[in-house]
């Protein structure tokens, strides 16, 4: 029996198993256990949540391996970790640590302003952010096994995630009505690999799992992204920057399962305490916006 490791099927398959679930940012073992007990399908191991990265400024890098290992030891669910855009050595280190998924993330300070990581070289799967279909298909072309909206991380404001989700899904809808001879010109227009454009048109969806991320702070935000057509949800600062993280984490997990049932959503949204304080995107100076990072 020949075994094959690190294939596209195995990488994309783990993302498929995360669908309908919530991936939560955590910064220590205690938060990781709270997330697991609340029903998170995976955790993202970080040194600082995006809201703190935004507040503190400076260069944001891969977390200390000590921190990531502490979180890996604390929980039995998959553990993800972030590396900087283009920083393939941080990715090599994360793979060596044994993390289950790498997020090549715009939340950290980019290490390369022209190139992303060649993700096909790795056995560990990658997730990447995208604001539109062209960006999503470029990342898949580089080997990403999962896509997420960028949103605007650390703001508690869902507007950018909605913008990116609508852009990707709207462009896919347009693509499915296109004649085949129009697809090459369209591939050129959006800067995406032609084969992936054709495959996306045939499937009527991205060839990989597509999650919402960036600014999700309430059960209603999570259900909104699911009803728009996302496969699942990342929650970053939204849980551990809120008044009652345990209650809120549980409620967001329930909301992603029952996203189409307003009565249940009403019930689980009650008495969750203070949500994280949000930021209006228009008040963030252009150079401090994270979503524009990535090429």
């Amino acid at each position, binding site marked *: 029996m020949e075994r094959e490791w690190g294939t596209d*099927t195995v990488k994309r398959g783990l993302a498929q*198993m995360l669908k309908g679930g919530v991936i939560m940012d955590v910064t220590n073992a205690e938060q990781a256990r709270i997330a697991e007990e609340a029903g998170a399908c995976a955790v993202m191991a970080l040194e600082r949540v995006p809201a703190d990265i935004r507040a503190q400024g400076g260069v944001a890098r891969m977390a200390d391996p000590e921190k990531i290992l502490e979180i890996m030891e604390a929980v039995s669910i998959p553990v993800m970790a972030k590396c900087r855009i283009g920083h393939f050595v941080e990715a090599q280190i994360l793979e060596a640590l044994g993390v289950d998924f790498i997020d090549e993330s715009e939340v950290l300070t980019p290490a390369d302003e022209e190139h992303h990581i060649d993700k096909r070289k790795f056995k560990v799967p990658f997730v990447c952010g995208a604001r539109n279909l062209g960006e999503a298909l470029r990342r898949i072309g580089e080997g990403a096994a999962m896509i997420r909206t960028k949103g605007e991380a650390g703001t508690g404001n869902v507007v950018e995630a909605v913008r990116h989700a609508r852009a990707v899904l709207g462009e896919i809808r347009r693509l499915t009505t296109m004649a085949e001879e129009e697809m090459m010109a369209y591939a050129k227009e959006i800067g995406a690999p032609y084969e992936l454009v054709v495959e996306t048109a045939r499937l009527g969806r991205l060839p990989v799992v597509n999650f919402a991320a960036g600014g999700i702070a309430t059960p209603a935000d999570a259900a909104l992204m699911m009803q728009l057509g996302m496969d699942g949800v990342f929650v970053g600062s939204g849980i551990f920057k809120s008044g009652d993280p345990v209650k809120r984490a549980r409620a967001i997990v329930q909301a992603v399962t029952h996203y189409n049932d307003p009565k249940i959503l009403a019930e689980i949204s009650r008495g969750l305490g203070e949500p994280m304080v949000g930021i209006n995107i228009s008040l963030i100076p252009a150079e401090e916006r994270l979503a524009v990072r990535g090429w």
Partner: protein
Amino acid sequence: MKIGVLALQGAFIEHKNVLARLGIPSVEVRLPEHLTGLDGLIIPGGESTTIGLLAQKWGLLEPLRAFARSGRPIWGTCAGMILMAREVVDGLPNQPILELMDITVRRNAFGRQVDSFEADLPVPVLGDPPFHAVFIRAPLVERVGARVDVLASLEDGTAVAVRQGHMLATAFHPELTGDVRFHRYFLQLTG
């Protein structure tokens, strides 16, 4: 015939897609009332702790056990296998499970994601060729009860597909490959 797919979390759409290709209507099960009128149920892959907690929270554990007692077939893939086991090794303390089959299952038995793999697996009840099996952070069956049949094993003898009467469990994901033979085998159990 109508088959339910437990849709609390995980890869439930993949199972629905295979059933649709076979011309079998399916429904998503999120609440106990969704079990009414079903001829069989699939518990998909996903995160077993998440699915178990959601099943407990929405009062599904006992209705699912009653569904099994009624003699209708249930098939668990990966996380679904964990939920069907009588005993789980390396689970969360008090992780909610259904305890439907007399097996002991070890969670994340092969290691982390970099140890996930695919391989051609001989499955005698499906005949030739071997079944292309995808193992993702997969469990394995560590103990097989007296009334449980082993349908497939790895070369070291570890059981990865088992059947006990009308109940079926696989450590791998037939819904991720194009091969519909395992779904056909399950549908035969509906009688």
